[in-house]
């Protein structure tokens, strides 16, 4: 999953000489919290709703008036992402620098913007059920060929895998959460157990008949 797959476009932008009042109005109208600041098609900086509120707050030691310009308040230079970056790189940067968005820039051209909400959407898409499916969790040894063996099992049963989420648990084992195109996850789990897989979900239910 790349940044270009989850970014938003077109981007709502503002010029550096606009007033803070205009910036505030634009944020409310468009329902956004981040405004890339653009001059002659070039990305100068970024203004967030928090920058705006902090700058104009009475709690600030030197509050600015609503007529002050965006240039006085914006953050520059600004951290950006490339459309071809993997989403996880963008996520790591945002986490490390504790920021809420990254303008997406290709060369000098502003292509889009990616925010925390877009990353949550990506998480929901990766872990959720966008298509009717059942959940199977299998613990595998952390070595080559194990996931392939699991995938082959589903292929042999004519069952489609909608999504796979794998994450390391302790050393040597990996937990795999699959969403598969089947209502019959229990019979599939029984088959997997017979083949020697460690199935964590669905659990055994010896009393069913």
């Amino acid at each position, binding site marked *: 999953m790349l940044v270009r797959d989850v970014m938003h476009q077109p981007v709502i932008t503002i010029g550096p000489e606009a007033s803070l009042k205009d910036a505030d109005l634009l944020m409310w109208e468009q329902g956004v919290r981040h405004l890339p600041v653009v001059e002659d098609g070039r990305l100068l900086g970024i203004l967030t709703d928090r920058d705006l509120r902090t700058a104009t707050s009475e709690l600030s030691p030197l509050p600015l008036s609503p007529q002050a310009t965006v240039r006085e308040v914006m953050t520059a230079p600004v951290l950006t992402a490339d459309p071809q970056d993997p989403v996880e790189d963008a996520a790591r940067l945002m986490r490390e620098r504790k920021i809420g968005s990254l303008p997406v820039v290709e060369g000098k051209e502003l292509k889009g913007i990616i925010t925390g909400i877009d990353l949550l959407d990506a998480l929901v898409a990766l872990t959720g059920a966008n298509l*009717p499916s059942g959940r199977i969790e299998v613990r595998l040894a952390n070595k080559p060929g194990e996931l392939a063996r699991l995938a082959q099992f589903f292929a042999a049963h*004519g069952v489609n895998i909608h999504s796979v989420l794998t994450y390391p648990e302790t050393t040597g084992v990996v937990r795999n959460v699959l969403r598969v*195109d089947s209502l019959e996850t229990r019979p599939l789990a029984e088959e997997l157990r017979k083949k020697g897989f460690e199935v964590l979900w669905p659990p055994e239910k010896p009393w069913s008949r």
Partner: protein
Amino acid sequence: MVPVIFSEEYLRYDLGESHPFSPVRLEMLVDLLREWDSSFAPLRPRLASRQEVLSVHAERYVRRVEAASRGEEVADLADYGLSTGDTPVFAGMDEAARWLVGGALTAAEVVARGQSKVVLQLGGGLHHAQFDRASGFCVYNDLAVAIRYLLQQGVRVLYLDIDVHHGDGVQWLFYDEPRVLTLSLHESGRYLFPGSGGVTEIGQGQGVGYSWNWPLEPFTAGESYFAGLRLLYRKALEWFSPEVVLVQAGADAHYLDPLADLMLTSKTYRRVFAEILTGASRAGAAAIFTLGGGYSLDAAVRVWALLYHSLSGVEPPRQLPAAWLSRWRERSGKQLGPLLCDPDEAPPRVERKAVIERLNQANAERLLATVGKYLKP
């Protein structure tokens, strides 16, 4: 006597030898009802037309079901959820599925004409079928076609789905329709097929507030289930005042079911059926019951036999008939207990009971708080 709708044609909806959605369940059930009462004479349904199926399904989808039904090669069946492990194609599937739709329509007609306040369609309940996609054993959505018909008669419908799987097909088909309230109780989609049915799925557009979902923790037992059902069902009746309650009475929330993880017993089911009936009657609404999922031959047949007795208002016998038992033990090769109800010691105890109950209750409250904003008078 409550009208019961059934035809031998229903048995043609057969997805294959070892498929869990087996017509044998129906055969066993009808044979049991006949064994008890030799004069058992169900009402014959009519066959639904192509046009009626098109009231909820895309033509391009129906065309593919028809072609597959004739045994023609179609390249893109899988894009329509057909010819998959869950929903394989078989000769005559279009007509077989239309018989089930016809049964649901016949039931709806009986109620719409005022011939009876309660009716039992002994089959169908294919709640996963979607606008242009077969899913989870379901080809045509008989329930949705019946709802569409009732809407055309100017009737408001409360759709109550007690199958252990989320009633996604019906929900999505009426997601923006404020004249249909869908209430589905199911094992949480976090664990079980089809994955949808969270409390936050509440409808869209004009229909916001009219989709209710109560996802249940795996291994939820009868008391927690019944308490929530009563709470939500009564609120739905009070806030929505439906004229018809359409119940998809799947039996797969039973603890013996091989495909899911809830822990209901025959005792819970009897309370559930009684609650649904008295609630509808108090609200002046008619009630239509269909069958649905239920993959333990033993449990599903007994649950539906209890449903039949609840609707008829007749105290069910304690014992299953000996002749029937020996016949079906031999034919199915399954263990079948001698009693209609589950033994008192069933089901096995669950360790996380308190946590399960707390989570379920919290979800029921979240649901009411969310939809209440839109519906509360």
